[in-house]
């Protein structure tokens, strides 16, 4: 009986300590610049211009409301880049991500992946990885979660300005 209790408690503790999500450790890693935007922020943004009757604006609000979070990590450090690449590969395999496309742009390898959502155009996760390991460029990892319309990815890139957002504009669907 005692053993059972101890085991149960150990399981409980280990669950709480290992409940950290993928990539979270990069938020506090040395030499990594991180940007994280959470769902609350999108809800706020969506409420800001609700009176707007402009259809373009309405589209934009719909898109913002469908997002859960955006995480952007970028680094120039070789060690951090290596860790990022490793974690990305592991995540890709464990979450069964599908490759959307891969672009070689000015010597940079840019890879786009997604996790299928409710239909062909909508995905539940969208990831971009720029491998800067072999040149002087930043290694960049972008992860967007939500109910994402692939056709609107370019718009997200337009509204937020960060390292690698230019690459997002190149995403084309059929």
């Amino acid at each position, binding site marked *: *009986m005692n053993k059972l209790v101890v085991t149960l*408690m150990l399981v409980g503790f280990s669950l709480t300590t290992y409940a950290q999500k993928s990539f979270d450790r990069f938020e506090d890693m040395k030499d990594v610049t991180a*940007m*994280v*935007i959470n769902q*609350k922020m999108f809800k706020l943004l969506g*409420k*800001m211009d*609700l009176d707007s009757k402009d259809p373009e604006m309405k589209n934009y609000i719909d898109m913002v409301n469908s997002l859960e979070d955006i995480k952007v990590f970028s680094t120039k450090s070789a060690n951090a880049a290596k860790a990022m690449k490793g974690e990305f590969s592991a995540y890709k395999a464990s979450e069964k991500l599908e490759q959307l496309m891969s672009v070689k742009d000015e010597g940079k390898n840019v890879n786009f992946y997604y996790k299928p959502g409710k239909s062909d155009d909508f995905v539940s996760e969208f990831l971009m990885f720029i491998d800067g390991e072999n040149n002087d460029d930043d290694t960049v990892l972008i992860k967007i979660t939500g109910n994402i319309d692939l056709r609107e990815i370019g718009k997200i890139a337009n509204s937020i300005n960060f390292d690698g957002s230019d690459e997002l504009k190149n995403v084309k669907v059929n």
Partner: protein
Amino acid sequence: MKAFKFSLMLLLIATLMSCNNQQSLQEYYIDSKENEDFIMVDLPTSLISAKSESLSPEQKKVIESVKKINLLAYSLKDTAFYTSETGKVKAILKGDNYDELMKLGSTEQRMRIFIKGDEDAIDEVVVFAQDNSKGFVLARVLGNDMNVADMVRFAETMDTSSAALNTAQFEGIMDVFN
């Protein structure tokens, strides 16, 4: 079975205790008030509304939803103190029902924004900015059902009516980052 009940009790007590030990941000402000290393500015909004004749009824409503603006700044002198204080603030912001809106930066320089309350009726906005070589600023806007959409509209009209607002108090704070 007895052992099971006992461990359950222990767990319960442990969780209760961890709740009680949690310092609130308000308490942190009060504790830090005594410390001369901090620069502290308390800005009750009554100060702003003193010249409120020049403001429209909508602008008045926005100002009235804001009760107080608190600023706390530390200009880096002692790294160990800086580390322990930022650690305290982080722990408070992690618990105590704050929702993180976003964070930006690296381990060296970082800004984080939090809110408390619903998206369209915010009770508290906290901005926490730190720079490992300069210090940190903790800004807190306290209010009652603050609405961000209204505030943005208000901020847009700020330029024209800024003469009515006394911003001189902020200048001392900004010096920290110069």
